[in-house]
């Protein structure tokens, strides 16, 4: 199987010493001159083309976090010992690991696959799911669920359909085929994402404490084994420049920039890895994602404070024409690298053979902290692995508040026309609940399997997804993710905190106790000081918010350069909150199932319409300041919901967010076709706000709950005791109608049909 290329056209370390002045395409590979010079200083010579390939990809923004690192640190610094006491693995590994009790731990993370999903939506989104699932698997966990956070361009733009179709089909194809229930996500349309959709994917996995695995190679003599799919020419469009430099006449000309996913291969890989873990034959493991072998070899060695000797010709190829540089950078999917003690080699082989997974031994771990890679007899890489994997460049880029910011914040909704008559209010309510961002997402979520595994306790359209982790005890977890780019644009600091607050509230609403945070920070170009300012504000907001709520950030991902032409997307920090629930049977549904229950609104409603859905849908307006962040109130509210859930007082709970009370009422009634009679005059008077605000304000720290008659006194007492503002606004009803007194009354079938028609009309 050895590659047919002869070693003579390979750029070796020897050659590099002999030809110090050879021109190298560092610029085409995305390096800065200072970075190229730095590599030469580290090595004491010019890099070989293989080394140049490795450094260029590992020092890219995507892999090195060079622009974000100095800000991400605060997630590890703004913490209390109380916050981190359940963290088994914190930031810096493939994914954080949280102890959830009873010997169980969970690991979760959200990651972006934005740019590939624009070029080739189906494969881009599919491989995005595949990549995040491998990160979770790498920690020793069985992946147990996925979620997807999607942002597309304007719904009426013809290209949006191409992207929506492909992305949703890709997620559905890959996730369903892996057997992971999809338990939630987000779908937002906004023209700022037209040429740059956001496709973020989250995965969560569960493991027993003793099964925890780390990505490190520390014991000299252990074998370095690559297994899974063969290596092909996927996702290395960019390295072609190297190939053409090195092999101008014989080399391949154009390599594909996209990767193709094989979920079947990944499913087999998951089962195979879990069996390897159980047999305790791997000392360390790393998935191959971005930067492929360059990343896996250098990170494993660097994390283990050791080195590695690798024979690159041992890599099993799909295509013999790949050059060493291409092999090092290939992003072929469904591959893993294991560090296996020699004594366990036979056991390892028996398991991978059982699953018919191909593998090859690339080399072994050495004590000297150096990464040596040979191509046949020729040495083509000889580097300190830390300099590739961890000690890359770090930038403190210039920041500047956007020039438009002050004017944007001044342009509030105060002077926008507000509806007065019942007819106008009713019309606006329908316009809002049937707008693409507020309408039912069934068209998308019906393409996702949420049943597989038999452990899904809550999924779409509930506020949070919830899965049972342990069948015996019913211990489970809940996850919600949120981000509002419009809020982020108005105030990135508050925007990040609002995303956190909403995800936190969603988890609390399900009955779970919020425990940890992950994030995917989607921003424009870091080379633009205004974008960098947004990033600085958002990360500070998130870190401060987590400290105030007392839950740690366990990991995340940064995606920069999201822009259409020169125009950056709105800052879109996707925040995921993980909660723990001791018994999933206690979960709180968001829909109404019984008539005759009292409906209460918890929290205070203020006149907060800036950045709201109302301002967008009715007035096509974005300006002012987003709703106030009220983290102390969120905390109290979460604790009250928790207490009420434990006492079994709540028939339902649904958080209020985009679209305000009107949206929540429509969702809660149409879910199970249980009607309601609602009276809002008291709210209007008590909070001294307009009718528009009563219906559509997006004030935070609010939840809509229903309570059976028998629990009423107890529940109201519980809220009053804890100082939670509570207003009775109606009662659920057998009549399948939503009646909002003095405004309008709608048959639920009409509301449901209208809400469910929007996306199919656009995309089916």
């Amino acid at each position, binding site marked *: 199987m050895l590659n047919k290329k002869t070693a003579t056209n390979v750029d070796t370390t020897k050659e590099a010493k002999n030809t110090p002045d050879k021109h190298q395409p560092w610029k085409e590979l995305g390096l800065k001159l200072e970075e190229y010079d730095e590599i030469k200083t580290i090595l004491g010579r010019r890099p070989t083309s293989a080394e140049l390939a490795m450094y260029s990809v590992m020092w890219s923004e995507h892999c090195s976090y060079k622009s974000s690192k100095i800000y991400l640190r605060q997630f590890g610094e703004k913490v209390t010992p109380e916050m981190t006491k359940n963290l088994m693995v914190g930031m810096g590994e493939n994914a954080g690991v949280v102890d959830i009790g009873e010997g169980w731990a969970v690991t979760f993370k959200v990651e972006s696959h934005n740019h590939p999903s624009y070029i080739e939506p189906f494969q881009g989104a599919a491989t995005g799911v595949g990549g995040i699932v491998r990160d979770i698997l790498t920690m020793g966990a069985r992946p147990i669920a996925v979620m997807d956070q999607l942002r597309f361009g304007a719904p009426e733009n013809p290209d949006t359909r191409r992207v929506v179709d492909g992305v949703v089909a890709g997620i559905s194809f890959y996730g*369903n*085929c892996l057997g992971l229930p999809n338990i939630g996500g987000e779908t937002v349309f906004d023209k700022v994402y037209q040429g740059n959709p956001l496709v973020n994917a989250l995965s969560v996995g569960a493991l027993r404490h003793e099964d925890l695995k780390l990505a490190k190679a520390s014991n000299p003599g252990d074998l370095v084994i690559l297994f899974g799919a063969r290596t092909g020419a996927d996702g290395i469009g960019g390295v072609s420049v190297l190939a053409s430099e090195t092999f101008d006449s014989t080399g391949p000309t154009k390599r594909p920039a996209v990767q193709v996913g094989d979920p*079947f291969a990944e499913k087999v890989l998951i089962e195979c890895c879990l069996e390897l873990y159980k047999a305790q034959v791997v000392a360390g493991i790393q998935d191959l994602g971005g930067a492929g072998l360059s990343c896996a070899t250098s990170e494993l060695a660097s994390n283990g404070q050791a080195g590695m000797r690798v024979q690159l010709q041992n890599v099993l190829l799909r295509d013999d024409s790949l050059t060493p540089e291409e092999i090092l950078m290939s992003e072929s999917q469904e591959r893993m690298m294991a560090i296996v003690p020699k004594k366990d080699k036979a056991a390892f082989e028996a398991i991978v053979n059982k699953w018919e997974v191909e593998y090859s031994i690339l080399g072994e771990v050495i004590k000297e902290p150096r990464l040596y890679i040979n191509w046949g007899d020729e040495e083509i890489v000889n580097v300190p692995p830390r300099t590739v994997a961890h000690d890359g460049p770090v930038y403190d880029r210039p920041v500047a508040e956007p020039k438009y910011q002050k004017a944007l914040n001044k342009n509030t909704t105060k002077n926008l026309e507000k509806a007065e008559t019942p007819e106008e209010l009713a019309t606006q309510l329908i316009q809002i609940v049937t707008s693409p961002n507020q309408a039912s997402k069934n068209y998308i979520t019906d393409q996702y399997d*949420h049943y597989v*595994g*038999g452990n899904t306790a809550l999924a779409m359209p509930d506020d949070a997804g919830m899965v049972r982790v342990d069948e015996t005890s019913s211990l489970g977890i809940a996850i919600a993710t949120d981000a509002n780019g419009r809020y982020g644009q108005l105030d990135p600091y508050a925007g990040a905190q609002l995303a956190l607050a909403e995800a936190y509230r969603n988890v609390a609403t399900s009955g779970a106790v919020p425990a940890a945070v992950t994030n995917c920070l989607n921003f424009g170009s870091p080379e633009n000081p205004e974008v960098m300012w947004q990033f600085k504000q958002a990360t500070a907001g998130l870190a401060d918010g987590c400290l105030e709520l007392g839950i740690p950030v366990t990991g995340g991902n940064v995606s920069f350069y999201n822009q259409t032409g020169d125009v950056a997307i709105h800052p879109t920090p996707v925040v995921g909150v993980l909660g723990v629930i001791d018994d999933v049977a206690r979960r709180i549904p968001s829909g109404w*199932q019984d008539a005759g229950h009292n409906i209460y609104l918890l929290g205070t409603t203020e006149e907060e319409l800036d950045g709201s859905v109302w301002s967008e849908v009715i007035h096509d307006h974005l300006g002012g300041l987003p709703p106030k962040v009220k983290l102390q109130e969120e905390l109290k509210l979460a604790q009250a919901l928790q207490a009420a859930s434990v006492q079994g007082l709540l028939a339902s709970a649904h958080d209020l967010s985009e679209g305000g009370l009107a949206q929540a009422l429509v969702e809660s009634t149409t879910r199970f076709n249980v009607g309601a009679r609602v009276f809002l005059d008291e709210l209007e008077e008590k909070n001294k706000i307009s009718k528009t605000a009563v219906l559509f304000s997006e004030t935070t720290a609010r939840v809509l709950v229903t309570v059976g008659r028998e629990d009423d006194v107890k529940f109201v007492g519980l809220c009053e005791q804890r100082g939670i503002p509570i207003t009775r606004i109606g009662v659920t009803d057998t009549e399948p109608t939503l009646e909002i007194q003095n405004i309008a009354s709608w048959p639920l079938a009409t509301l449901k049909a209208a809400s469910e028609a929007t996306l199919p009309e656009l995309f089916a």
Partner: protein
Amino acid sequence: MKIGVVTFPGTLDDRDAQRAVRLAGGTPVPLWHADTNLHDVDAVVLPGGFSYGDYLRCGAIAAQAPVMQTIIEKANQGLPVLGICNGFQVLVESHLLPGGLIRNENQHFICRDQTLRVENTSTAWTNQFQLNEEIVIPLKNGEGGYIADAETLKRLEGENLITFRYVDVNPNGSMNDIAGLRNAKGNVVGLMPHPEHAVEAGFGPDMPEAMRSGVDGLKFFTSVIHSLVNA
């Protein structure tokens, strides 16, 4: 009662099917695709998933697996076999049941709570249902459109082999609203919807009484245990 649950590479609902067997009072026995030995099981479930990635045609590669050669032989002798979703596709590709399953009419994967009518209760897997009982069972597939030529359809109708039909909504464009079939003997049954996802309150389909409370799928598994006990 030992009920085998086959795992092919790419099978997804094998653990769910095992749980369903357990909740019905049986003992699940895992069977591996590469094995020809059925370990003396009394019945076999071919669970859902994407065996071999569902590449080429759903169930086509799995139908060639060693374990299937034994199952085909034993099924022809009367061993109760239930094919769920991908398992149904494997049964069709193995010619234990007629016809074929093609891409859903709307071209999308569909996951929904589906109402079915049980039109035949004289099978190993449906004897605990009432004739024409309507049940709610989750459906989730990309290629669930049942097709057969006119003659086959006529025979299926005439010989009363159509065991489940979609009610209210035909989600995938199946001919004659066919959701599931049996063979002439009634030991082999296949259907697209997933009874193993409707066996445990809290994790099943939504029902009028309460969210996720549907357990109609349990009767598939109690049926087979009943038929084995009374065999």
